[in-house]
């Protein structure tokens, strides 16, 4: 019964607040209710009124009415505090499962400004900020990635209890854009294709990687990561380690290298391997069923690989 009503309510809210990366808060989408403290405040007013009646004390009547008016004014002020605020999802970040993934939002205040606005979302630490009238403020909400793939919060709650904390006005922004959540890296077992000879596979590959590299002079377009900077320091020659001429595919991380292992787990292994390669600064490629990424180096490449792992066989939410 309760779940039925709560689903009805959710549906209603979702109809009212469609997905969008920008939301302007106004009468149509702000909800307002007293907080716990507000309810107690109401009880206090009733007790005060009873005291006034039984003691026939005009000044207590006056105090009751004053505080009652403050409460009514607070309804207005709390609502106004949120009303006119425009919240835009500027950037949905990327990160690993289990990490906080940054959603960068820009809050632009209307004419009145917005004080003590709280952003919250399941799996994210609450963020509180103020915006000066007519200005904007960038805030980052770190949402914990729960599973590999696209991460799009169902809704981010925007709440304010200012000025007195007796009322809460809230609304939601339901972002359209998604963040990307990379598979959680897990140390890969030694079953990786290249690690046959029993030695530490990392070491072996390192050696191989360097040995198979062909050294050639630097030419325009080479990645700076490939320049042998030690050599430059030694004799001033810009020399680039080039693997393209190397034997076959020096280091191609392969989805099929872990037979019998669960797909998600394979992706986690690959994720760890990508990170290891990235930290060693060796080139690598990635083979996924349906997607091949040629060996390369650099942050952009690493990100591309991790993204590929993250969204492999995931559809971007509509």
């Amino acid at each position, binding site marked *: 019964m309760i779940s039925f009503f709560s689903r009805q309510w959710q549906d209603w809210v979702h109809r009212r607040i469609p997905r969008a990366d920008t939301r302007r808060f106004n009468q149509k989408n702000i909800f307002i209710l007293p907080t716990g403290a507000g309810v107690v405040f109401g009880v206090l007013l009733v007790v005060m009124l009873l005291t006034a009646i039984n003691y026939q004390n005009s000044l207590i009547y006056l105090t009751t009415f004053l505080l009652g008016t403050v409460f*009514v004014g607070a309804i207005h002020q709390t609502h106004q505090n949120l009303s006119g605020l425009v919240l835009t999802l500027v950037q949905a970040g990327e990160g690993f499962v289990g990490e906080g993934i940054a959603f960068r939002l820009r809050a632009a205040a209307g004419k009145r400004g917005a004080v003590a606005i709280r952003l919250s979302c399941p799996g994210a630490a609450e963020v509180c900020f103020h915006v000066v009238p007519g200005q904007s403020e960038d805030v980052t909400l770190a949402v914990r990635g729960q599973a590999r793939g696209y991460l799009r919060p169902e809704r981010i709650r925007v709440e304010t209890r200012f000025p007195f904390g007796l009322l809460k006005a809230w609304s939601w922004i339901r972002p359209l854009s998604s963040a990307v959540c990379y598979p959680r890296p897990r140390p890969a077992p030694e079953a990786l294709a290249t690690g046959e000879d029993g030695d530490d596979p990392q070491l072996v590959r390192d050696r191989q990687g360097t040995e198979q590299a062909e050294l050639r002079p630097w030419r325009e377009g080479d990645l700076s990561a490939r320049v042998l900077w030690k050599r430059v320091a030694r004799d001033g020659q810009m020399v680039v380690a080039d693997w393209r001429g190397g034997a076959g595919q020096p280091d191609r991380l392969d989805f099929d290298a872990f037979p019998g292992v669960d797909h998600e787990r394979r992706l986690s292994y690959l994720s760890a391997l990508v990170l290891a390669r990235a930290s060693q600064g060796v080139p690598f490629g990635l083979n996924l069923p349906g997607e091949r990424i040629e060996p390369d180096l650099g942050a952009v490449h690493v990100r591309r690989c991790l993204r590929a792992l993250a969204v492999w066989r995931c559809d971007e939410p509509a």
Partner: protein
Amino acid sequence: MSRRDDRQRGRQPSRLPSQGLLWLMAAFIVLLLPQWDRLPAWLIAVCLVLAGWRWRAQRGRVRLPGRLPRMGIMALLIAVYIASVSGRFTVDTAASFFVLAVGLKWLETRNHRDFYVLFFILAYLASVNFLFRQEILWALVNFLALGLLLVALQVVNAPDLPDGLASGWRRLGGLFLKGLPFVILVFVFFPRMGPLWTVPLVSGHARSGLSDTLRPGDISHLAQSSERVFRVTFGGAVPAYRDRYWRGLVLDYLDGETWRQTGGAPVEPLARVATDGGVGPLAATEYEVLLEPTDRRWAFALAGSEAASGNLFEVEEDLFRFPRPADSPVRYRLRLTGLPKVPGTPLDATQRHRYLQLPEQGNPRARALAASLAGRLADTDVVAELLTRFRQQPYFYTLRPPAMPENGVDALLFDQRRGFCAHYAGATTFVLRAAGIPARIVMGYQGGEAGVDDEYLIVRQYDAHAWVEAWLDGRGWVRVDPTAAIAPARIESGLRDAVAEEGSFLESNPFSPQRYRDIALLQWASLQLDRINYQWQRWVVGYQGQSQMDLMSRLPGGLGLRELGYLTAGGVGVGLLALGLVSYVRSPREARRDGHRRLLEAWQALCRRAGVEVRPGDTPDDLAKRLARTRPEAGDTARRFARMINSHYYNPSAPASSSDLRRMRRTLSIIRRQLRGHRTGTGNAP
């Protein structure tokens, strides 16, 4: 919660913003002010120490006590409190318990929840304070405290807001000003129903004032107080000073040296608070008394009055009583019947016995004097002779009477001859009774100085007086005031003149403005303040059931309580509706005000209708390009429109003008026409 855990939290009590805590403490201290004289000193000291402790902990200087020490402190203080209260339950004790609770709460004010608990207790304390004091200045103090509380809430809800304090006060001020008309309307129209049930007395402590026993010298300490007892407004002429005898109670039983009431005061169940003090203009024979709280049921009245308002009734001995002790200011009305009551029947045996009662022994010389007087003179002449004796022999009226511990009447009449009104009234009653004339002591006030513009009289504690009433056959009870014979100035113009030579007027009360009558400015200020308070008391504090009905009956339509209820409910409803409407109307208008923004939206809508996808973040140029691709015929105009929009938003040197806006609007309608023309064109094509 484990102890370790607790101690860790004790180490970091600064989760609450210091500013908020500071303002809450300030509110607490301000709220203690109106109670400074009724709270036990130890309680105030303890509260200040505990609040100081919390503050030092906030600054990281000390640690808050752990759970066990805290429990210890709590148990100790509550035990002390219970011992000091000793079973009485009044609002006074409840208020001091509130104060104690706040004091203890300081030690565990750790999070927002605690903060709100304190806020609620303090807000209620502010209204409890109104039970004790209703003067306008104290009301302002209380409202200031409420303001501090509300600012503290704002600080706690936005601790890191720059300039939060100033904006907090500003916001509160705005809220107050906007809400004030609403508050006034509700205050005037909210139906003042009668009390729903009886409530405990505000205070169980005896206030300074007359008491129901009289020892010689008792009243002289009241003479050192300039506190106001009541104010009187007369509908007709104000009686002469010497006729202003305000009768309060009668003492008729002499117990050793002490005068008491026969049988003592009866214990009666507490009645509900009644404020029916009469309404409408005063008739010429009526007068209205506004009595400060006395915690007694006595109403002070001139001789020969009858009750004219519903909140007091007449009892025997021509006195008036309230159904409930006056624990808050009471307004009541009386009517002068013109003539003192002449009794139809003589005193019966019981009454004679009662008013002739004397102790078996003591004061032999006074008894001898009485016997000699009674032997040669009739009752009326005995009284006259006694007064002549007081007038002619060197008796002195003094605020510094000598101690007369034994046979006080003899000592006063024959040896010392120095005393205050209580001495002389006691001695006179003694002699009259010894002479066989029924007599009794009346206690009350005599006199009253005029307020600003002679609007009303102010009677103060130093006007306290005791005099005698003697029963003379055929005349009934007759007032006999020995003080009038000894110090006529006391009765003609008041205590100040009566003790002017002695210089003892208010000598132990150097802060009373009444003491410095010769400083005109001070006197003027004091009277002006009194008038403001009087009006405040009458129109705001005293605005209760009957006076509301009175006001309403002057409005057309004749509103009853029920109509008032509907009116208030309707008013509140309409007010809320208006508020909602205002905010509803205001918000879209704000969006509308920006004409360019509206144009932009219309432009986006137009593109959407033409089948161009509009994504957030698209610039007008992007849209124009895409529109030109799908609908080439509108491309040029679209690009022109995009240029205009861009120059408005991104070229600050271009002045924003309405002609500029009009041009853009025209361009937009051209695009619209072009698009429509194309559509109809394709529609007509085979």
